């Protein structure tokens, strides 16, 4: 399947099914409603075959270029059918399973994620470990043919909805840093796991604390080898900054266009809106280049930190403008449109925090791309 053919066929299908696919709620909806909408759209897109394109056949895909996945997420986002945050978790977690899980496990699990039958979460951060991921402490010890996991994760997005978790644990001695980390694929229903949703400032409870109390995880759920968890994490992060980022860029385009509709003429200056447009133009161009490198089989690496910096900067520039041009809506409005602007304005504040903070991205650029040697 070629991209052009895919694009026109998918567009036609989305037009034909617009009514069924549309969210049944106005504005942002509750988190429960959003998750139900996500599952509905993913299910329909999977059954119609769209979601299977761009994934390898050994995990139930139909093959073809990953650009097809890029376009699918873009089209669903531009039409307001899915929120890119939840939707794009697939783009982050499925490639990790494909690269690091036992082939049978990947073949069994990935289709469930693609179909929207399951949601997975990513358990990296801990109370004592945010930016300094290599210091994580959540402990896993070998016990026969299982790991026993004890510790805590925090800010784990969608953990309360997730059936599985890609978890990073400490299997080496405490001082083993990045060498002593092991990744595993954990069933969230396993006894000993407690999930406590945390309220977020943008509304809802998108993320959670997750507690592990002597949780048993079969050894054959290990992702990669014991002690290879750091590579799993380092290979996963560029995925966050490729297709998922392309989807988020589509979201920003959609919201910029909505801002043009919602804001009154005297609240938007040409200079300000032009500035956001120009940033978005560059971001989209950059992210598109990354999609094509990935499609050509290139291995993505630290250069995707540039994509992430551009995304975070542009997202905040757009919503800074929203905050100014729709100040009354954001600060005082109570209708669904205002609530949506407010939630998105607040969420944009996290763009420089999650997935490696703005400072961490610049550290990567300095060290890995500019080769400036070690920091003082």
């Amino acid at each position, binding site marked *: 399947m070629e991209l052009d053919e895919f694009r026109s066929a998918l567009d036609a299908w989305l037009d034909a099914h617009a009514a069924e696919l549309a969210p049944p709620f106005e504005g942002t909806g509750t988190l429960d409603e959003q998750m139900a909408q996500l599952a509905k759209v993913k299910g329909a897109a999977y059954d119609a075959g769209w979601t299977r394109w761009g994934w390898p056949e050994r995990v139930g895909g139909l093959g073809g270029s990953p650009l097809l996945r890029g376009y699918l997420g873009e089209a669903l986002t531009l039409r307001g059918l899915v929120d890119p945050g939840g939707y794009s978790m697939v783009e982050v977690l499925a490639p990790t399973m494909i690269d690091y899980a036992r082939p049978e496990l990947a073949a069994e699990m990935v289709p469930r994620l693609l179909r929207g039958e399951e949601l997975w979460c990513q358990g990296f951060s801990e109370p004592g470990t945010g930016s300094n991921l290599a210091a994580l402490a959540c402990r896993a010890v070998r016990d026969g043919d299982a790991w026993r996991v004890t510790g805590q994760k925090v800010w784990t997005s969608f953990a309360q909805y997730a059936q599985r978790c890609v978890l990073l644990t400490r299997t080496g001695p405490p001082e083993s840093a990045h060498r002593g980390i092991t990744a595993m694929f954990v069933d969230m229903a396993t006894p000993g796991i407690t999930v406590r949703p945390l309220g977020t400032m943008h509304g809802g409870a998108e993320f959670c604390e997750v507690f592990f109390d002597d949780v048993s995880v079969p050894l054959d759920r290990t992702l990669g080898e014991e002690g290879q968890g750091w590579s799993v994490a380092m290979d996963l992060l560029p995925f966050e900054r490729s297709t998922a980022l392309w989807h988020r860029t589509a979201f920003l385009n959609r919201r910029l266009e909505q801002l*043009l509709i919602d804001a009154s003429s005297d609240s938007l200056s040409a200079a300000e809106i*032009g500035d956001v447009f*120009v940033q978005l133009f560059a971001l989209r*161009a950059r992210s598109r280049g990354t999609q094509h490198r990935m499609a050509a089989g290139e291995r993505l690496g630290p250069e995707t930190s*540039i994509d992430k910096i551009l995304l975070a900067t542009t997202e905040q520039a757009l919503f800074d403008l929203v905050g100014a041009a729709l100040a009354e809506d954001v600060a005082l409005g109570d209708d669904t449109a205002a609530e949506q602007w407010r939630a998105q304005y607040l969420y944009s504040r996290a763009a420089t925090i999650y997935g490696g903070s703005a400072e961490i991205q610049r*550290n990567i650029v300095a060290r890995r791309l500019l080769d400036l040697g070690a920091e003082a």
Partner: protein
Amino acid sequence: MDAGELELFRSALRQATTNHTGKALEDALDELGWRDALAADRQAAVSTLFELQGEANATSSALDVVMAGRPAVLPPLGSYDQPTVRGLGTYAFANSALDGVTVRPVDGIDPSLGLVEVTGRLPITDVSSWSDAVAAGQLALVHELIGASRAMLELARTHALERVQFDRPIASFQAVRHRLAECLVAIEAAGAAAEAAWEMETPLSAMAAKAVAGRSSRVVAKNCQQVLAGIGFTTEHPFHRYLRRVLVLDGLLGDTRTLTKRLGEELLRTRRLPPLQTL
């Protein structure tokens, strides 16, 4: 051009731009067949030459060739869209002896660029071909700005690794590292925008790319200057030539501020986004 040919072409051009400037550079370009390359593979010929010209701080009238195939008048700073009677030309204009046109050298902040002020009637009357010419010229300037920005970053990067203060290279200080990281992000954004504009071939995308590149070059100039500090403020260090160059190049065929505002006006007029680059 395939990858191998492009590599050869690039190294021949690099020889030319590092060793020559002005008329001598044009002779060198003629000798190595840059015009033939322009006819065969426009993107490769323009992007390669202008990046290298920017990197070497060299000058030539290649912009005239790209824009009109003859000396072109670049309307002055701030207003770029009317082929009217007063504007800037490359130094080649001084020798063009067109009827009814007077030419006066402009030194300004970057005398070595050799711009001239041109007053008189323009040879270009077809407005649609003029807007294509502007887009072509903008894109060439984007690459020249990127080349100059890369050169500034390389100067600052090398300096940061070599300059020792408090018993360590200043490249080990995070404030310095983040400034340099900012520069690379800005340059890569401009590079991506340029690629997009080549692919889209619309006047609007060339404007957007020029706005991105002008803005990026100012970010780079500002941060590199801070890292270079005292040494970079002397005329013995090459930095100042690049700073001068990007300030003038940003102004040619529409500076960032003007182009950004025009794009914004277009958005406010239509209340929708223009067609975006597709995957």
